[in-house]
């Protein structure tokens, strides 16, 4: 019998090792798996390369992971968000690396990683400093730059509903990077607001098919990141 549901956060992140590349879903707090990130802080794996669109807010979630010096390098498109000071301070001090990637290129690199496509050409960033040193090629008279797919050891994502097979449905714009990250990691770990019986999710509405998912944990009442940031909360509490 296939049952991907697990019952403890520590078990969810137990396999994560020092030096791992980890994709973390979410666009700001929408779709960010804050409880899994906090479990990773408790777990303590270090020298991580994190692929995520942003760098977190305040001192919770991704920002707390960065503040805890577990992240060696960020691969992201927008490390400057309201209330995002942790990354800026470490970056200015030379204590964290940044690979800045245009958002669409980041999405396509992740999608490609999961789809078995090693590299692709994109028009984004042509004639800008972000294209410097990259191979380029002309197609139909227009220049494109070569970008490489990204694979991860682990992906941490958040969804609305899941079943024991790992089929996932998301809520509104919390979908964002999560489905493509599920496919791009060797081990995808999901926190779901609810785990429903197999068959309850209409196959027509499944967004992430279970084949991409390794572990699912139910977190019924995930924290509200912006409230925690407004209240100046820090993790570990």
């Amino acid at each position, binding site marked *: 019998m296939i049952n991907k549901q697990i019952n403890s956060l520590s078990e969810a992140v137990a396999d994560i090792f020092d030096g791992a590349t980890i994709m973390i879903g979410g666009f700001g707090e929408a*779709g960010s798996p804050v409880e899994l990130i906090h479990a990773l802080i408790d777990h303590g794996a270090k020298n991580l390369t994190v692929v995520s669109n942003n760098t977190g807010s305040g001192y919770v979630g991704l920002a707390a992971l960065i503040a805890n010096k577990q992240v060696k390098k960020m691969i992201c498109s927008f490390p400057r*968000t309201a209330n995002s000071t942790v990354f800026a301070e470490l970056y200015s001090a030379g204590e964290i690396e940044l690979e800045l990637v245009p958002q669409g290129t980041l999405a396509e690199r992740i999608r490609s990683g999961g789809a078995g496509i090693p590299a692709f050409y994109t028009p984004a960033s042509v004639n800008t*400093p972000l294209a410097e040193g990259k191979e380029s090629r002309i197609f139909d008279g227009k220049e494109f730059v070569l970008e490489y797919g990204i694979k991860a050891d682990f992906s941490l994502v958040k969804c609305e509903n899941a079943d024991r097979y790992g089929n996932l449905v998301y809520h509104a*714009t919390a979908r964002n990077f999560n489905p493509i990250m599920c496919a791009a990691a060797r081990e995808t770990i999901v926190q779901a607001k609810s785990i429903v019986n197999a068959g309850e999710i209409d196959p027509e509405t499944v967004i992430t098919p279970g084949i991409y998912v390794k572990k699912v944990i139910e977190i019924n009442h995930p924290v509200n990141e912006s409230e925690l940031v407004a209240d100046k909360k820090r993790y570990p509490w």
Partner: protein
Amino acid sequence: MAKKTALDIPDGSYVNLGIGIPEMVADFVPEGRELIYQTENGLLGMGKVPEKENEDRELVNAGKKCVTTIPGASYFHHADSFAMIRGGHIDICVLGAMQVSKDGDLANWSTGAKNAIPAVGGAMDLVAGVKRIFVITQHVTKHGDPKIMEKCTFPLTGKKVVERIYTNLAIIDIKENGLFVRELGPGVDFNYLQKRTGTKLNLYSETMA
């Protein structure tokens, strides 16, 4: 500025809105027109800003502010969103700017300074893939320096990409043969505008005569 921009968007357009003042364009859909706003974080059919009590922290725009959906909206993941953008399916994109050159070059992601934290977001994909790029910006910087200039001094987001600029002082078209003032703001005269612009401006009437 946001209202003026919305007025220039043709009925039936699919429009992407960038972070900052462009977000406000969604509040001004002109009477009798149907515009579909796309937000790059995975929503087509973005509606107005909700009342505080109806906010959903998982329904946000590119600036991570809460928004709503219109009837007929759809959600999709990031790779699909940028396929839409890069693939040329979006008609108009409205972006903010740090600098715009007379040739339509745009700089809006980094000052290039050593201590600056660069943040590009989706801007480079948008200018590479969307059919028409509009910019909304203050005419000059906080220090009073021109943002519309001969050549951008900050790192570029894209080369020859901007078609029209909406500022607090004027609306300016970028053409092959120069910058043309399409409309002056209330109480703004041409000389006042030219003094605050780092490159030569033209009036349509002069050249058309």
